[in-house]
Each structure stands twice: as C-alpha cells, then as structure tokens.
C-alpha cells in the first residue's frame, strides 16, 4: 500500500467511529497537556528561584559562622553551630583581603516595632552602610544607614515599604521616632517596595546598625557576612582569602563556612531541575494510561472490523499490510492527541503566566519534546498488539462474521 493511501485509509477508519476516536484523542491530549503544564510549573518555580537568588546581589560570597562537613552547599548545613563567635571585628578584618570590594555584616532577629499606639512583629536586620550596595537594594525615601564606626551605631532605622504603610499610613515617616524592642530609633529612610522576595523580604524588614542589633538581641556573633568580590573571577580567591583571614583570627581553626552565590544557585538549580523531572515523570504516567486506552480502543476496533479485515485479506492484503494499517491508525490518533494536548498545555501555561505575571511558567523544550515523543511512542507501542491480532485473523472465520 502506498503511504498516502495508507494515511487516508487510517484516517477514514478513525473517522468511521467518531466517539471512539474522540475519546482516545482526548485521553492522549490530557496526558500531553499534563506534561506540558506540570513541567511549566516545575521549571517556572526553578526560574523564579533563580531570579530571586540572582537579585541578592552580584559576585556574592557569604560567610556563615560554624563549619559544615561537606564541601558543597545544601540547605541543611545553612544552619551551623560553633563555640566561637563570628564578630564584627572579624568582618572588618576581611576588608584586608585584596579580592574583596566591600562587605556588610548581618545580624538578624525578630522584635516589635511600635509607633503611635500601633505595634507589630518585625524582622530586624542589623548591618552597616555598605549593605545597600552589596545587596543592590533601592531606597524610596531618605537615606540609608550612615557610614561610621561598625562597633558603635547611631539609633537610626531604615524601614521596609510595607512597615511604613502599616505604621504611618499617609503620614510622613522620615524623622519620626519609633520604638523597636526597648530602644528608640529615628526613621531615616524607607526601602523601595521590592514586590516578591525569598526569605528576607525587605518590604517587611527594619534595618538598624549592626552594633545596636547585637545589643538588642544580646549577642556577639554575626548571622552572616555578605562579601562582594571585586569581580566574577575574584570570587574563588576571595573565598580562599576570607577562609585564611578567619583561620588566623580564630587560633588556626577553620570554623566558618564560606559559600558562593554560584554554589547556592547551582544547588537550587539542581534541586528544582530534579523536581521538574519528577513532576514530568508523574505526568508521563497519564501518558501510559492513555497508551493502554489506545490499545483498548484499537482492540475494540479490530473486533468490530473483523469482517472488513477478512475482506481485505480476500482482496489480497498481506498480514503486513493489515498490521501497518492498524499501526498507522494508532499512530495517527496518538499524534492528533499529542498535538491537541500540546496546544492545550501551552494555552494552560499561558493562562498561568497571565494570572501570575511574576511566575515564568514556560514549559522547558526537553519536556515538550519528551512528552510528544512519549505520546507517539506509547500510541504505537500499545497499537502493536491490536495490529498483530488483526493481521493474524483467519480470513475464513473473519469473513463469516457479519
């Protein structure tokens, strides 16, 4: 049989049973659409996290007190413990490293902020004037913390956009005195609204000088030191120099963990990439189910068309021709389902992007290709058994069936 004839024959045969064909195409399209949409969600989550981490700042090296055993970074060893403090003096000492452009120590705790009878829980970040540059943040109003001695601090605070709205409403916030914990601070600046953010959202953050935060939380140690290297290629030297300086200052003991932004990014990339893969696998199960449906529908088709198969044999069709015709039908139905599902999936992903503009829900190319290929492959694979059954029918018995 010629290829165009084969395709036309299979198309007509499929068109002869619209309900059966429609159900099969629908099942296959749901499977493919599930793959497209779920991988769009998974990969969207990965891109979203990547974007958020990239916006932390550039060429960042992060110093944590305590030593983790593994070389790489994983979220579990972000929480470390050590008997020796990582102090503001340590942070200042790191400025001697040639690969370091600037750095900002960070102390974090929760406290209460109150103004004019209004009170709320806030996250307090104690840091220095360099923080805004290291993190590449933007101010909406006023100024950031003043440069000065890191060991002391003026009672000034920079508040997040959301805190400003909740505490002051339409009133001006700059120059007002607020109470944070049991101390009074003067508001000197308001951070620009950053919208979404991971972990520490500056919208709900109050930033005060590091020394005052340490006093407030009664601690000597720093939560982090955020270091900006002089360039991308200086990240590794900076890491080594930082480790060396801290080791010298801590009686020869390496009791800090130095991680780079790239390492964190790579880890999350891997983590969320694996998640996407897993989600794609789950979606692929629906494709396998659709494949079984293809088999079922084709078996019914063979049974219903027994007399026709007998006739085709009588008219000189070889077993191979009949097998090919049924396989072509299964493949065409799978292809139609796959294409429809692709369209549905892309439409679904587009709707998600419309509803959540911050979320880049684009299905990755590999998932789309794998989804379409799997659909076609399962369709053909599960079409083999019915096709073989059709080809093996005894023509005499097949013809006697009406």
């Amino acid at each position, binding site marked *: 049989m010629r290829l165009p*004839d084969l395709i036309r024959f299979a198309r007509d045969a499929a*068109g002869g049973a619209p309900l059966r064909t429609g159900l099969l195409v629908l099942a296959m399209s749901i499977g493919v659409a599930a793959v497209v949409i779920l991988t769009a969600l998974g990969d969207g989550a990965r891109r979203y996290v990547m974007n958020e981490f990239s916006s932390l700042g550039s060429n960042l090296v992060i110093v944590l007190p305590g030593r983790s055993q593994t070389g790489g970074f994983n979220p579990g060893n972000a929480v470390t413990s050590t008997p020796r403090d990582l102090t503001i003096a340590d942070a200042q000492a790191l400025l001697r490293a040639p690969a370091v452009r600037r750095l900002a120590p960070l102390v974090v705790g929760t406290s209460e902020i109150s103004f004019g009878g209004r009170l709320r829980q806030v996250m307090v970040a104690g840091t220095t004037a360099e923080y805004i540059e290291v993190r590449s943040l933007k101010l909406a109003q006023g100024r950031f913390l003043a440069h000065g001695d890191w060991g002391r601090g003026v009672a000034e605070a920079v508040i997040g956009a959301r805190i400003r709205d909740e505490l002051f409403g339409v009133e001006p916030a700059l120059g007002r005195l607020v109470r944070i914990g049991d101390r009074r601070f003067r508001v000197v600046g308001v951070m620009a609204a950053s919208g979404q953010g991971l972990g520490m959202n500056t919208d709900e953050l109050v930033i005060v000088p590091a020394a005052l935060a340490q006093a407030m939380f009664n601690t000597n140690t720093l939560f982090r030191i955020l270091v900006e290297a002089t360039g991308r290629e200086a990240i590794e030297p900076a890491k080594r120099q930082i480790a060396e300086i801290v080791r010298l200052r801590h009686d020869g003991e390496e009791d800090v963990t130095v991680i780079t932004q790239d390492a964190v990014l790579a880890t999350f990339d891997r983590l969320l990439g694996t998640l996407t893969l897993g989600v794609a696998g789950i979606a692929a199960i629906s494709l396998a189910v659709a494949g079984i449906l293809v088999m079922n529908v084709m078996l019914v088709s063979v049974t219903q068309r027994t007399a026709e198969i007998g006739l085709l*044999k*009588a*008219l*000189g*069709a070889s077993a191979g021709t009949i097998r090919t015709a049924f396989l072509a039908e299964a493949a065409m139905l799978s292809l139609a389902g796959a294409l429809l599902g692709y369209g549905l999936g892309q439409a679904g992903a587009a709707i998600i992007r419309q509803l959540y503009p911050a979320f880049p829900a684009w299905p990755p190319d590999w998932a789309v290709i794998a989804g379409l290929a799997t659909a076609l492959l399962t369709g053909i694979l599960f079409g083999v058994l019915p096709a073989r059954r059709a080809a093996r029918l005894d*023509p005499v018995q097949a*013809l006697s069936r009406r």
Partner: protein
Amino acid sequence: MTAAASAPLIALAGIERVFRLGDSEVHALRRVDIDIAAGEYVAIMGPSGSGKSTLLNLLGLLDRPDAGTYRLAGRDVTTLSADEQARVRSERIGFVFQSFHLVPRLSAAENIALPMTLAGIAPAERAARVAQALRDYGLENRADHRPDQLSGGQRQRVAIARATIMQPAVILADEPTGNLDRATGDEVVRLLETLNAQGVTLIVVTHDAALGGRARRQLRMEDGSLQHDSARA
C-alpha cells in the same frame, strides 16, 4: 496464461480438509480431485455442510488443505507462504460474496479501487480503471455513493466490479444472488456470465438449482466428497 495450453488452470489432487471440534473430527473435504480449465463456467452445488464453501475457500487460498496439492496455473500454491498467497489472491482471484462485503465508509468508487489500493497501484491508473469499471457496470452516477445509499443489485455490481478490477483469471462467487430478488439476481448472473464469455474462469457456489443449472459444468458435493461431476458423467 503461463502454463501450457493442455494444463488445467486449477488442478486439485487428493485434497483433504479436517476440522477438529472438541474431540471429534469433521472431514469437510475427503480426497477431492478436480481439474478446471481456463475459461470454464462451473457451479459447485450441494446441501449446507457438504463442504462446498470449504472448497471455495481453498480455491481462493483463504484456507489451506490438510493434505493434497492445489496447482493454480501450473504452480503449486499450497506450499506458498501467507504473504505469497496474498499476492496470488491479489493478482489472480476475484471474490464475490453473498453479503457483498463492501466497506461501509468507502464510496462505490473507493470500494472498487480497494484491491488496487492494497496492491499499491499508482493513483492515476487506479482512477482510469475505476472510471472504466463504473461505465462498464452502469454505476457512473453512483460513484460517490456509499454502500448504504445503493440498492442490493447496485451493491453486488460494485462488488463484481471490485472482483474484476485486478483482471483476475478466476472469479469465485459464493451465493452471489442469495441476498437479491429474482430480477436483480438474474441481472447479476448475466453480468457474471458476460465476464465468463470474455474468458474469465467463473466458479459459483450455490444451492439454488436454477442458478447451478445455468453453468456449463456442475459439481455436486455431498458429505465432503465430490458426488457428481457433469464433465465426467
């Protein structure tokens, strides 16, 4: 034909066909020997269960004998593979069935073209031959009608057109008038006889004595054996 003029078109020798139904064996055909020359008009008659349909299926290569040899145009076709037999069916044998066996979703023209489509003949030649067949069988204005839009006589004419489109040497007709009224039946028989007059070997299975009587040679089957052959009587 390729065989020498003296050799018969169809030569059956010692054909046996046994069906096993549970523990019992049913001898559908017992040592059947028949020679049919090219261009003959043969009726196979007998009561139901006499083995005449089994014989027709064997002649059409839809079934294999358990013993004996079947030579078609001098070639032993019993030992051919299934695909080779399909090829022989395609090129040499045309079937006409009692219940027409048209493909319901295909138009009359497509049904007629089906054997050529299966054989992979080029569309242009197919179209030309189908157009000729539609003219020959008076179906020109029924070309695009599907079988359920045709009368019984028209359906059987489509089926005959399909059986002859590959220009076979043999036409096997199984009760070709069984589902038709007397007038249309006669029309169909005359059509088949015209083909025979043009040189096609025509083998008709029937239990209708009137139809069988029109053939130049009658074979009477009974209980799996050939009881009477008018050519030898």
